[in-house]
C-alpha cells in the first residue's frame, strides 16, 4: 500500500521540511549481516554480538587475565564498538575482531598489573612471555572458531588434515573425494583462516 504522507495541521507551510511520499510497509532490499549492522552503528548488533560471543570472549579473558575477566571483556566490547569504523566487514567475522581486541585489552591489563608494586613479593612476570602466551591462546581460539564456520565439506577436510594428521591422499581415499578437490579445500580453508587471523590482529584503536 502506498501512502502519501501529508504534513499534520499546524506544521504545514511554515515547516522547513520537504514532505516526501512514502511506501510505508516496505522491506529492506538486502538483509544486512550482523557485521554490517555493527559497523553501521546498530546497537542491537552489539547486543547480539554480546549475547552470542560474550561467553567465549569472557572465557578467553579468564584464561588470559584470571579474575578480572569481566572487566577486560567489558573494555573489549566497548573498544570494539568505538572502533567499529575500522572493522572490515568483507574480511572476516566480528567474533575474530572481538577476540583480537580482547587479547589486546588483556595484555594492557597484565602490563598495568605488572607495573604495580608487588606487595606480596611475587616475582614480576615476564611481559614478553605473557604477550606471546596471550597471542598463542587467542590465535588458537580464533582459528578453531573460524574453522567451525567453513562449509561442512571444507571443514571436514581441514580437520582431517590438521586435527587428524592425515595426508591429502589419505583424505582423498577416506572421503572418496578427488585429490584435487581435497587440495583445493585445504588451500581455500587456510586462506579463510588466515583472513580471520588477520582480522583478529588488527588494532581497534
Amino acid at each position, binding site marked *: 500500500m502506498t501512502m502519501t504522507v501529508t504534513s499534520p495541521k499546524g506544521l504545514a507551510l511554515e515547516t522547513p521540511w520537504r*514532505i516526501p511520499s512514502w511506501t510505508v510497509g516496505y522491506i529492506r532490499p538486502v538483509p544486512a549481516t550482523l557485521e554490517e549492522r555493527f559497523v553501521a552503528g546498530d546497537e542491537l548488533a552489539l547486543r547480539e554480538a554480546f549475547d552470542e560471543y560474550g561467553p567465549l570472549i569472557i572465557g578467553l579473558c579468564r584464561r588470559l587475565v584470571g579474575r578480572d575477566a569481566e572487566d577486560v571483556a567489558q573494555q573489549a566490547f566497548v573498544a570494539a564498538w568505538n572502533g567499529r569504523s575500522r572493522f572490515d566487514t568483507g574480511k572476516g567475522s566480528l567474533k575474530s575482531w572481538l577476540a583480537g581486541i580482547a587479547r589486546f585489552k588483556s595484555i594492557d591489563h597484565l602490563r598495568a598489573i605488572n607495573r604495580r608494586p608487588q606487595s606480596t613479593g611475587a616475582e614480576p612476570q615476564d611481559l614478553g612471555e605473557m604477550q606471546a602466551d596471550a597471542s598463542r591462546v587467542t590465535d588458537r581460539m580464533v582459528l578453531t572458531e573460524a574453522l567451525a564456520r567453513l562449509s561442512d565439506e571444507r571443514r571436514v577436510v581441514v580437520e582431517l588434515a590438521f586435527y587428524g594428521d592425515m*595426508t*591429502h591422499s589419505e583424505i582423498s581415499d577416506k572421503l572418496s573425494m578427488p585429490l584435487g578437490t581435497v587440495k583445493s579445500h585445504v588451500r581455500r580453508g587456510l586462506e579463510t583462516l588466515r583472513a580471520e587471523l588477520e582480522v583478529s590482529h588488527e588494532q581497534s584503536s
Partner: protein
Amino acid sequence: MNSRPDNRDANDPEMAELEAEFGSIMRTLREGPHDIEPVAASAGLWAKIEHDISGPHVVVGDEESSDATVVSLDSARERRWGKPAAILTAVAAAVLLVAVPVGLSLGSDGADVDDVLLASGDLDVLDAADDQSAVVELYDTDGNLWLDLDTSRAAGDGEFLELWLIEPDANGEVADLISLGFIDGSGAYDIPDDVDLERFSVVDISVEPDDGNPEHSGDSIHRGIPNSA
C-alpha cells in the same frame, strides 16, 4: 613442538608450498581445537557496556595537544551551552524551527570544539491523531556528525523506538536505510563516519516489536528531511 614428520609429504611439492605460505597457521591448527570454556556474563555486565557506549563522544581540549580527554558529548555540551534541553524545548514550542547556522562555541579561548548546526527541523507525525513531536538537529563536531533528537516519546511495553536514516529513490520510495540505534526519548545519536547524508537524507523513527528482527518494522511514527541551516 607439534610439528609433524616432514617425510610423510616429502614428495608432495604442494605440501611444501602450503607450509611456506601457511606454516604458522598449520602449526597452530595441529595443536588441536582450543579448550576455552565459555563463561556466562554476570547479570550487570551488559548494562555496564551499554553505559560506556551511550552517547557519542568528542574530544574536548586543545586540538594540538595529545593529552586531550575524551568526555561524554552530553557533559561537553552542557558545559558550553548551559541546558541544551531548555533551548530545544523552546525551539520546539515555537513549532517553526529557525535554523541557526553558527558555530555554537561560547568559549573565547578557542579550546572548545565547535558544534556546527548543519540542518534541523520537526519530523512529521505520520499518524494525524498523534499529538507528540520529534525535533532533530544535525551537528558537525570536528567532522563527526550527530543528531540531537528532542522528543517526549517513550517506547511502550514490549517494543522499541528505533532511529533510522533512509535513502529515498527517485520515486520517494526506500532505496536503503541505516539504523542509528534504539532511542529512549531525547538524546544525541552518532552518525557513522562513512554515511553519505546527501543520500541518506531522511530521518525516520519507527516502532519495533521486541522480536529480534533487526529490519525496519514498516511501522514509522515520524519522518522528515532536515532543512539545511
